[in-house]
């Protein structure tokens, strides 16, 4: 950001601003402001309708713990969507990873050696699923929507086979102790989410990997002719998202103390919705991690406020839908303005 002030000769009109300061933040600053305002309004609504039950440290930590799992998936999803793709199989991958990491066999090995075995198992399973998705899309030339729809069905089915549709209770003391702890009063799950978000931001905005992601999503043919290996990059994007799903599975196991083939239900919708209302373009080429984090927080807070007011899940779903529509309409309006 300092380089902008270092060059007083470059008087940039408003058009150019979009890509200097804001690009560093990952999105037009104005839109992040909008998201912050939306979140504050939601919190005000929570305070007004639920009073102290909302504005309570434990309740805020509950919101954050809930946001953490879907948040990790959403950060990964931001990369895939920015790169011009989509992944419908994230929920199923979370389920499969959670089941595989909590089988009696895995837990046995974990108890005999170290609980970290469970973490590696989940990451390995998630990463492998992402790799398969990416390879199918990049080298098999299957449309991402179809390839990951197939994975959705297959991964959840496999999770049911492995778990025999039974909830697998975790009984690995070290695992629970580590993930239930807090650091300076902040739950470990929330710390993990924060680390993933910051890491994701750096990866997207500060590295060649991130820059290639924007290029591949913005114009794959131009990226290819500029010398970028678009196929390999696509595989890496889906693998990264798979790893995020594996990590989310670990966090979900910790929060629920179970592995189950029903874990991660509709995560694909929640993650895509959070990414889109955050300001990442579904058509690729523009993405923002900060926006995604706000998107996740908005949805989780909304659920919390509704629950505290004893409103049904169905009412939450209607409100979610309305938010998505409004956000997409706003996004199109903004895109038209900056594109002109």
């Amino acid at each position, binding site marked *: 950001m300092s380089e902008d002030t270092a060059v007083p000769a470059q008087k940039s009109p408003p058009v150019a601003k*979009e890509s200097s300061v804001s690009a560093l933040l990952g999105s037009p600053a104005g839109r992040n402001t909008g998201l912050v305002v939306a979140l504050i309004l939601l919190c005000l609504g929570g305070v007004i309708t639920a009073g102290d039950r909302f504005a309570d440290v434990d309740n805020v930590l509950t919101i954050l713990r809930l946001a953490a799992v879907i948040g990790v998936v959403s950060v990964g999803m931001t990369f895939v969507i920015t790169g011009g793709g989509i992944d419908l199989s994230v929920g199923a991958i979370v389920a499969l990873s959670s089941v595989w990491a909590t089988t009696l066999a895995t837990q046995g090995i974990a108890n005999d050696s170290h609980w970290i075995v469970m973490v590696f198992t989940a990451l390995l399973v998630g990463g492998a699923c992402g790799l398969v998705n990416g390879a199918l899309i990049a080298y098999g030339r299957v449309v991402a929507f179809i390839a990951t729809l197939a994975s959705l069905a297959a991964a959840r089915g496999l999770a049911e086979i492995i778990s025999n549709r039974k909830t697998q209770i975790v009984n690995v003391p070290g695992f629970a102790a580590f993930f239930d702890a807090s650091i300076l009063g902040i739950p470990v799950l929330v710390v993990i989410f924060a680390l993933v978000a910051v890491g994701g931001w750096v990866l997207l905005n500060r590295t060649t990997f991130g820059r290639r992601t924007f290029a591949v999503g913005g114009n794959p043919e131009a990226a290819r002719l500029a010398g970028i290996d678009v196929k390999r990059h696509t595989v890496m994007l889906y693998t990264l998202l798979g790893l995020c799903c594996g990590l989310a599975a670990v966090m979900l196991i910790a929060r629920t103390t179970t592995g189950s083939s029903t874990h991660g239900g509709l995560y694909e919708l929640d993650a895509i919705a959070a990414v889109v209302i955050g300001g990442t373009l579904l058509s690729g080429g523009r993405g923002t991690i900060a926006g995604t984090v706000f998107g996740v927080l908005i949805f989780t807070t909304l659920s919390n406020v509704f629950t505290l007011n004893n409103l049904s899940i169905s009412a939450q779903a209607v409100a979610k839908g309305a938010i998505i529509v409004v956000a997409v309409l706003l996004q199109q309006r903004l895109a038209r303005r900056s594109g002109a």
Partner: protein
Amino acid sequence: MTSSALLSVQGLVKRFPGVLALQGVDFDVRAGEVHCLLGQNGAGKSTLIKVLSGAHRPDEGEIRWRGEVVSFGNPTAAMRSGVAAIYQELDLVAGLSVADNVFLGHELSTAGFTRRSEARRRTRELLVRLGHPEISPDRDVGRLSVAHQQIVSMARALSLDGQLLIMDEPSAVLDPDEVRVLFGIIRDLTAHGVAVVYISHRLAEIREIGDRVTVLKDGRTVATGLPAREVKTSELIGLMTGRVLENVYPDRTPVDPAAPEVLSVRGLADGSRFEGVDLTVHAGEVVGLAGLVGSGRSEILETIYGARKSAAGTVAVDGRTLRRGSVGAAVRAGMGLCPEERKSQGLLLDQAVFRNITVSSMSAFARFGFLDDSAERARSRELTEALDVRPAGVDRVVRGLSGGNQQKVVLARWLLRECRVLLLDEPTRGVDVGARSEIYELVRDLADRGVAVVVVSSDVEEVLGLADRVLVVREGRVVHDGPADEIDESRVLDLVMEGHAA
């Protein structure tokens, strides 16, 4: 042949934003004749056809149909009057059957229900008449070969029972036997009083099938009603090209005979569009590829670059053979491409200028994968200032720049890499005259610094003005290779259209 004018056009003018596509076209077509339209790329032929068939409205001038002034507001109106066009870009709907396509827009129906079996029967008749009984009316058009799609397109035009049939380069995708059948059909049609407007770059065809010729240049009629069989080839080419030089080309620097061979292509073939292409470019040399659209020139360039996989032959830079079909290998060896479609193939339109410039050299600005974007901006700023990209500002979004400035951004990308071989496909398409000569200067400047340059252009004048050596490509083969100052525009056009026979 009757002499009554079926269609006559006077003073036709068509403007597009920033371009005067037609600026005064006059000609007339008689019933029962084959009237040929000739002109270079960009002379306005396609625009004229679109105006005649109702796809565009003219801004000035009048069209008379059977003596009455008409205005075809849309293609359906033209169709109803009896004007049917077969466009160069096929206008068929993949996913629909052959019969559905033939009757698209004028479906046979009774009370809103389509008469499918009759449509199939009549389609079959038309296909038999066109010499292709093997095409089933029930096939999905998307699964047919391009040549067969062309046949369906013709069947569609014939199904309208038009009085005037416009054919835009119908022979471009047909083989000689099919062209013979096509000519048979045209003769049959004209014998029944139908008029045909026939467009082709192949002079031999025009002599065989044409009655009269109209020549267009820069959107104007320069000659009309010439007898197709008697008029001299040299006269036609002179009419098509005879214009004042508009662009100033930089002086050529003689290529050092001892300069090393940088790019060497041997026997390159892609298995369909071109074969046996040999090409060497020395350090400091600009080689031009001339040829018609569809002659294979862009494909040759993309195959050299590895963006298409070759079927045979080798590409070497500085004596080292490159891996086939790998853009990465070509870029690492020092090659750069400014693609034909700048917006869809060259640029990240919604991203900043500096990101577009550094996209091919990111590793030079990265340490352990982390980018130093202040260094990126600084280097990009130097380059955009040197190339005079306007308006200045490396954080600007590329979409907002003019065509010429966008092209400079693509060039800056390869300047940054200090590439050894620069491949330019239509470097001045959509670039205004001022920026054009700046780009010419830049190309010459690069060559003087030892870069090997290959330029592809539809504009023969540009190829001759810019290049040291010219290769002429016709139907996927190199038919001429020689110094640019030993060949002139009409000779190149001659080679491009007729080969040595002219």
